[in-house]
């Protein structure tokens, strides 16, 4: 086996484009997932038993089936029910729905982690429900939900590789195509592994920074 990274690096424009697509899909998909997940968790907490039960079903179905299957059903099955999306929007939508199911569980745990007394204290002081969520619950759960959220972001990053299957030109597709055009599979795989690793470590780093900032009040010791 001869090892030659130059072969691959000579295609850097294509590669950089692939990496840019991956990062775009990842960041937008993760933010949308988190927002949607938060909405779901909030609806489940405050919407009464019926809403809670009704939402539990899709959440469990989405968590219980592989992303690949959901992606295929949305992209290839969508047109049969009149939902014909282009690859990129379809990919983003599928990723956001998939991620939101997991994020909703993260936020649910977050809601549960705040001692009920803290909410009661706010209620007796006359806070409205929106204020309780904004001023008390969200900031308080932030520290707890941050690590699993970073984890989830990392999982979503890896799932973006599957978007290549519906023709989104992200970096796994670019790299493996270059690999097969130039017959440099191992090089392509190593480069891919390295890029993902860097992105993952970057996400972890951001997470830790945010954690540090948020935990100011915990670290502080008189």
């Amino acid at each position, binding site marked *: *086996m001869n090892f030659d990274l130059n072969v691959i690096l000579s295609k850097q424009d294509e590669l950089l484009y692939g990496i840019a697509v991956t990062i775009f899909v990842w960041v937008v998909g993760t933010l949308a997932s988190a927002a949607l997940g938060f909405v779901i968790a909030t609806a489940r907490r405050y919407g009464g038993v019926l809403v809670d039960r009704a939402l539990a079903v899709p959440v469990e179905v989405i968590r219980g089936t592989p992303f690949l299957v959901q992606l295929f059903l949305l992209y290839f099955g969508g*047109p*049969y029910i009149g939902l014909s999306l282009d690859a990129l929007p379809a990919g983003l939508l599928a990723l956001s729905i998939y991620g939101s199911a997991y994020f909703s569980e993260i936020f649910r745990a977050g809601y549960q982690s705040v001692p009920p007394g803290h909410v009661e204290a706010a209620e007796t002081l006359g806070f409205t429900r929106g204020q309780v969520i904004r001023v008390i619950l969200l900031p308080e759960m932030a520290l707890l939900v941050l690590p699993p959220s970073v984890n989830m972001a990392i999982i979503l990053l890896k799932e973006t590789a599957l978007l*290549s*299957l519906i*023709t989104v030109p992200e970096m796994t*597709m670019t790299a493996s195509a*270059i690999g097969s055009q130039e017959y440099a*599979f191992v090089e392509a795989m190593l480069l891919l592994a390295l890029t993902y690793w860097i992105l993952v470590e970057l996400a972890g780093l951001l997470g830790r920074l945010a954690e540090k900032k948020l935990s100011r009040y915990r670290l502080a010791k008189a």
Partner: protein
Amino acid sequence: QDALERVTAAGVLKVGTETAFAPFDFIDAGTHTGLNMDVFAEIGKELGVEIEWVTLDWAGVLPGLEAGQFDMVAGPATVTAARMERYRFTPPIAEATVALLKSAKDDSITKPEDIAGKAVGAGHATAQLAQLIAYGETLPTAPEAKEYVSFNEAYADLAAGRIAGVANSLPNIAFVAQQRPEVFAVVEPAFGTKTYFAYPGLKDDDHASLMDAIDAAILKMKGDGRLADLQQKWFGTTFDTPDAVTEPNI
């Protein structure tokens, strides 16, 4: 000991392939079947060895060959000049000329030129894609080429109506249309440059005598009509293929 001696000593030829490439290799009612199975069964007889199949996802096949996981590859590849630099190919076993698959309900396409300006799918980084693009440039308005990780997704997208056609080698799309005639149809004639499918193996000295022996076996099958029979069985037609591709058209 070179590769041939090792294979004969063990009595086993290990062949790597993927199983999602009908009609060459596929899973029918749970069993691995297809043209490649039959061709290699004959090759095995000629060499006096058993065939051991190693089935992988296509992403793993060529790396697996280079890593020595098996002696050669059965997933036939279109013979191209670039590929010949890295691999050694056996004599062709079928034509690989590119043709068009369309939706059975689509009356707007009756001949290859009709794809002008429409969206057509093909596998990413495949020889077929290159042919589609080259052909498109000869049309008044070039079709929009959409690239898929594998042809199976392209077929699904054709069925979903996002693209008007899929450009792939004739044997493959003929099989697709035959399987689901209510959904797909082949647009005759093939539009591409004449190309061929052959099995890749390693180019190094160690494998030279093994590849020679396999070449000889295939040529023998071609001579006595066994290859033609198999082509008839799997493609419903026979191809006139050269004994060796020395200067590929692409």
